[in-house]
């Protein structure tokens, strides 16, 4: 496995009416080729901001980046000129969005929108592009591809459109696919189908996938690695099985515990008191301290540093890694 995208000390500041918002606060993240990496967190934690920064999709008159996003071992996406960036977008790195209804231009045929990417990035004829688009449509389960090629977006259901947008994003065989809440707008039965399809295509095409979601179920379903975000920071990251079986950061643990599980009925759930901090000022100490039941005096004034365990598992907390299972705060 090689490192495909390496994010170093990424900070994203957003200019808004109420002042500067530090949406992403110093993130380090490595996405290796051939893995499905998930970013999970609650709304406003900066997960989408991070994902969009990889393709620089923000309005750059209102957003300020610092740090670096290295693509394929060298080039910094944040310093790239427009021309090089356009070569990468849709070709090397492509994206699927949350709402399939707004992904497509309602006035153009689905098929033409899919082959457009091919015509831009590759030197092929229109007929060839159409042939490959039809193939791709059938690959994602839209059958018969040739007939569906000339349909308009409104003629398809949400689930089919999400399949079509997967076809569109994979048509140039990208090395990284970023999926921002790809199943949030869909029903559970459709969600299961789409997740299965994404996993199958990822294995076939050997591309890396970065999936952004608020749903731990989606993470459990398809990810190899996961990063948990809170208040603009990654607070824990590692192998998905490790994170689920032995979370080290109190936030990760609370979040997993607050999900109702099948088989557990009529019991009280763990709820997290309070709300995430506002990101328009600097946060002293640990961002989670005000809501954390393990918080000590130290947590409120001193920012924690990453602790690293075996297998690339790291977390941002003052607590020793086994203190959550022991049930008390040590150190």
């Amino acid at each position, binding site marked *: 496995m090689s490192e495909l995208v390496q994010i170093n000390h990424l900070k994203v500041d957003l200019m808004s009416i109420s002042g500067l918002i530090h949406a992403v606060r110093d993130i380090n993240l490595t996405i290796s080729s051939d893995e499905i990496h998930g970013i999970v967190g609650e709304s406003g934690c900066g997960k989408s901001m991070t994902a969009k920064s990889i393709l620089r999709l923000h309005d750059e008159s209102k957003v300020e980046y610092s740090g670096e996003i290295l693509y394929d071992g060298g080039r910094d996406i944040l310093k790239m000129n427009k021309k090089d960036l356009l070569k990468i977008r849709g070709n090397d790195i492509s994206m699927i969005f949350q709402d399939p209804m707004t992904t497509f231009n309602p006035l153009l045929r689905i098929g033409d929108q899919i082959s457009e990417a091919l015509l831009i990035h590759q030197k092929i004829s229109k007929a060839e592009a159409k042939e490959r688009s039809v193939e791709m449509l059938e690959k994602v389960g839209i059958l018969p591809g040739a007939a569906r090629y000339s349909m308009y977006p409104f003629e398809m259901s949400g689930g089919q459109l999400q399949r079509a947008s997967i076809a569109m994003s994979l048509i140039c065989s990208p090395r990284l696919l970023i999926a921002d809440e790809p199943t949030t707008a869909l029903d559970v039965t459709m969600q299961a189908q789409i997740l299965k399809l994404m996993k199958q295509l990822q294995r076939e095409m050997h591309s890396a996938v970065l999936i952004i979601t608020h749903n*731990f179920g989606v993470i459990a379903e398809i*990810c190899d690695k996961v990063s948990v975000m809170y208040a603009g920071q990654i607070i824990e990251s590692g192998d998905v099985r490790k994170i689920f079986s032995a979370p080290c950061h109190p936030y990760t643990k609370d979040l997993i515990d607050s999900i109702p599980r099948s088989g557990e009925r009529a019991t009280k759930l763990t709820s997290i008191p309070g709300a995430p901090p506002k990101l328009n000022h600097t946060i002293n100490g640990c961002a989670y301290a005000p809501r954390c039941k393990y918080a000590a005096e130290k947590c409120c004034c001193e920012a924690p540093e990453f602790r690293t365990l075996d297998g690339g598992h790291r977390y941002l907390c003052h607590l020793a890694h086994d203190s959550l299972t022991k049930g008390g705060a040590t150190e």
Partner: protein
Amino acid sequence: MSEPFIRVEHVKKYFDAGNKKCVKALDDVSLEVYRGEILGIVGESGCGKSTLGRCIMRLTEITDGKIIMDGKDIFSLSKKEMKEMRRKSQMVFQNPYSSFNPKHTIGRSLTDVAKLFGMTNAEAKEDISNLLGLISLDESVLSRRPGELSGGQLQRLAIARALITKPVFILADEPVSALDVSVQAQILNLIFDLKQQFDQTMMFISHDLPVVEHICDRIVVMYLGAIMEMGSVDDIFSDTRHPYTKALIASKPRSSPDEPVPEVELKGDLPNAMEMPEGCRFHTRCPHCIPGKCDAAAPLLKEVSPGHFCACYLRQKEKTSESLPVQNGFEVKDIRKKETTL
């Protein structure tokens, strides 16, 4: 179980879709909500679960059938009687941000409801402060406006507002789907408290199976405007009969990567509601479809074990008697017979 507070009898709600077509949002739905229970309604989008809720609250008129609330048909009530009914039945909506007037303070939004139902200022004040204690919020929120509060706080206030009139019944339409999981847990715990402390009767509409499993006593599974399966939580989750319920349970994301991958998988998409499939409405996606039977006539909703109903040919074999199930004095009639006469 105690007597039903609400009886929905053969309710149909058709929406005109032009071109002589209609969408059958509810097609002969019958169910009861008993006092003191939380009844969960689950299904995919477009299955009619919200329409059913709106009909029960009389927010829309129905095409055919009856809805009996507290012994009275709600569609034949006078304005005055309806107001009393509105006091008894309250609603909590999906999006807490749009269920409060953004220009009014929270205090005003709450006292307005109290005054509307004839409380004096002093009574209202006392009630509201008690309710704030119940939802663990400070009195300082009363002077705030919705924009200053978080989604979780607002949803708790929406529940408090529904409780001001001391309702017998609360209808919650997807009350947690707009919220983050940590906040979702707060709301579910609050609903759980209401049930434990006050025996609150509720109908809980949701598309999220684990949530419904967690807090409901009985569950109704709907598909394309009709009930597929209905029974207690144990019936639905431990003794699943209908293939659709099975598929729905199998499609929910696993709660940990170590859980086994379920085998059943649902193929395809919901059919177009304007061109309802012949026969069993689920047969186009059903893995066990029997050609010639399932696509010819719809199976009836039959009682497969006490209190557990299922509308599927396959799962009813155990039941030998051909008689229609009788519950609380009224029959669950043959859906198809009625439709052929239409």
